């Protein structure tokens, strides 16, 4: 007998009510956690906010996902193959995949989801540009046809961040890519409890009883997503201090992140375990290439000569166990790690900087540093940069603004008088850096590019070569060339990578170390 959609909805609603009755609630295992940000937008394609992405990983499933070493592994896909001409990819879905509304996941759903994603994601856009067609072979098999080889196909389908490829029902995925989705129907291990969603305050998930996990153990975002709790409740704390206190007193079970300084508040608490988060952050200095004085490579090199990762990390993090000096533009501890071209000796070279400024003909014009006033990870950066600039004779003014105003202004290539800027900082999750095509720091298309407006056709050509290359060794060689060039031309200055910490009550077990926080695998006594 076929169950139609309305019956399935009625069934699930009934189950929900039964589950929410007080008698049953006693027996329920509920995980309470404090996230890194407040959830407001539910659509993971329309925004690249990390919190929306984390939410999406709970309720949606992905075709592939990266493991703890950032290697793509199959997730919804059972098997796949690449034709001998390297122009035709075939994917077959696993058995038993179903959306929360009861409908099975089909090849058509996947094709519609890929199409929607490929309108927004940087890697997806490149894929769309070389795709000639996608078609369903049968209910669980689909094929992607290309006009030229696309090396990072699996890397793209396994995108862990920015905009990952989440699979949605075709009826939802067919909506325009700019329309904000309001309905949350995924096929992931948790279902979203829409009635408990209080935007910016709290939200909740219940276990998807019908989810069929893979058999492998969980590893990063890959492996079997086995859910062991009945419910996950997420509460946003505007003050990290308050969240830490709540964990210390057992009011919550898990704290997604805190910085190295805040860790000391929980050390010595026997009921709390503290663990370094697997995905570090990377802070950077970005120059406005479109405006003097930083349109001149020598002025950028002058700043590069005095900005040492050691100073930035000591000033902003302090604890040497919580940061690392990292030369690799695509992340340390990732498949594409390399130290090629790294100029940072650990000692500021003021004489060299001054000589470079003189060669550049810099006349002492005042520059403007813009910074967001309400984001903790940015707080130490602007003052230290200002101090270094002062030491080499570049006067500067810090202008603070609210986060969205900062983003809007940082995206403008115009002069300061036209509402632009000269120098700004950016902080990345390493997960956003691992893909040479997806790494925004290598967007070198000039004024239309990512903030900083790096203009270097040679880099864009290298990215094209990387995209067509399917051999890992040759891919790596291209990446080394890209990194060397980016250091020489000072695309940006990496200021070191540092770790946040996660903390949880000792009653929690099986919390998977993953750069994107996941709660499958977690059990609670």
């Amino acid at each position, binding site marked *: 007998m076929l169950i139609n959609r309305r019956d399935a909805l009625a069934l699930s609603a009934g189950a929900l009510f039964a589950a929410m009755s007080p008698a049953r609630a006693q027996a329920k295992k509920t995980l309470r956690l404090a996230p890194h940000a407040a959830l*407001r937008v539910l659509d993971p394609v329309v925004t690249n906010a990390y919190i929306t992405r984390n939410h999406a990983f709970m309720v949606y499933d992905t075709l592939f996902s990266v493991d703890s070493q950032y290697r793509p592994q199959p997730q919804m896909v059972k098997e796949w193959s690449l034709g001998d001409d390297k122009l035709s990819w075939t994917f077959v879905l696993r058995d038993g995949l179903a959306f929360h509304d009861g409908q099975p996941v089909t090849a058509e759903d996947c094709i519609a989801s890929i199409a929607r994603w490929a309108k927004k994601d*940087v890697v997806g856009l490149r894929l769309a540009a070389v795709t000639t067609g996608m078609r369903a072979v049968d209910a669980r098999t689909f094929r992607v046809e290309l006009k030229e080889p696309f090396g990072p196909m699996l890397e793209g389908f396994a995108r862990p961040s920015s905009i990952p490829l989440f699979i949605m029902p075709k009826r939802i995925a067919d909506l325009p890519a700019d329309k904000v989705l309001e309905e949350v129907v995924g096929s992931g291990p948790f279902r979203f409890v829409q009635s408990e969603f209080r935007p*910016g305050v709290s939200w909740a998930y219940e276990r998807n009883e019908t989810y069929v996990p893979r058999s492998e153990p969980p590893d990063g975002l890959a492996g079997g997503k086995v859910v062991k709790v009945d419910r996950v409740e997420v509460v946003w*704390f*505007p003050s990290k201090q*308050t969240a830490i*206190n709540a964990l210390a007193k057992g009011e919550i079970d898990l704290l997604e992140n805190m910085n190295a300084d805040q860790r000391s508040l929980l050390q010595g608490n026997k009921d709390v375990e503290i663990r370094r988060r697997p995905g570090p952050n990377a802070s950077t200095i970005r120059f406005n290439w479109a405006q003097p004085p930083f349109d001149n490579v020598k002025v950028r090199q002058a700043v590069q000569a005095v900005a040492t990762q050691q100073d930035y990390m000591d000033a902003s993090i302090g604890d040497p166990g919580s940061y690392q000096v990292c030369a690799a533009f695509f992340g340390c501890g990732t498949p594409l790690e390399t130290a090629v071209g790294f100029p940072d000796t650990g000692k500021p070279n003021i004489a060299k900087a001054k000589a470079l400024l003189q060669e550049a003909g810099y006349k002492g014009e005042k520059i403007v540093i813009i910074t967001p006033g309400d984001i903790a990870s940015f707080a130490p950066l602007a003052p230290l940069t200002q101090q270094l600039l002062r030491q080499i004779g570049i006067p500067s003014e810090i202008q603070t603004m*609210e986060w969205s*105003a900062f983003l809007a202004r940082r995206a403008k290539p115009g002069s300061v008088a036209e509402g632009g800027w000269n120098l700004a900082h950016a902080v990345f999750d390493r997960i956003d850096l691992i893909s040479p095509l997806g790494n925004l720091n290598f967007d070198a298309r000039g004024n239309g590019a*990512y903030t900083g407006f790096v203009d270097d056709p040679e880099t864009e050509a290298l990215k094209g070569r990387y995209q067509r290359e399917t051999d890992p060794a040759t891919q790596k060689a291209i990446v080394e060339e890209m990194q060397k060039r980016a250091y020489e031309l000072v695309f940006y200055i990496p200021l070191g990578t540092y770790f946040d910490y996660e903390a949880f009550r000792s009653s929690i077990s099986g919390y998977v170390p993953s750069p994107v926080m996941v709660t499958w695998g977690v059990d609670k006594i």
Partner: protein
Amino acid sequence: MLKLIALRIAMAVPVMLVVATIVFLLLRLSPGDPALIIAGETAGPEALARIRADMGLDRPLIVQYLAWLGEIARGHLGTSILSKIPVLSLIFDRLEPTLVLALSAILITVLVAVPLGAVAAWRHNSWVDRAVMVLSVVGFSVPAFVIGYVLILLFSVKADLFPVQGYVSPFEDPVASLRHLVLPSLTLALVFMALISRVTRSSLLEILSEDFIRTARAKGNVERRVLWRHAMPNAAVPIITVIGLGIALLISGVVVTESVFNLPGVGRLTIDAILARDYPVVQGLMLFFALIYVGVNLLIDLAYVIVDPRIRY
């Protein structure tokens, strides 16, 4: 009496119109782009333009203003840009914690500050008087968030007497609710107590030095009776006035207190909405707070008539 009430309500309409105009101009004349928040940092200009058109942000300012006025006149506050939830239901959803917090702070204040101020005036220059003066000066001088953090450090983290944060509804669990409420309402009440005890003291002092009190004393009335029977009713008008004006102080305090203690009330909603540039929510909340202020003061105007029958408008 009915005429008086109708007149006062009619006077509130232009006030709300002024509020609406200020709020609208404040939000629309400032730089910043809510479309960018929705779209994310990497969105193209076409996507931004489309989202702006969806939200009506591309229309001329005056058209937006009139359309908006028309909407709020009919009680429509619009929907949140970010969460797509109607502003009114967002507000009502967050109202309970704020009301509970504010009412308990007012209760503490009236129960503690008015008697304290009265005793201070009555026993002028006694230790109670000094204590009230010190309290009022401290309450006015130390920012609420410093008080909040010190209270958390002392009573929650060190002494472990109260929960650090959070809100429990009194309708669900009265005992837990009370425990969660102690520190936040103290934090909020302190500045209010400073204000009220001070006003009570000074208005009583003034009245105690007036002729009719001297007359009452001269007639042989004992001090306590003079205080409560003759002086208090006359001091009530300035005290109630200040409680009304103090609603503004209370609202500011609510914003800070809710941030420190992580209470999901309307104060935090306002700050979040401002920082996220969620225009309809900010506008709705500012109007809402203004309405509360105007409403409370309207009630107080009417209360004068009861407390002091000589007052007529």
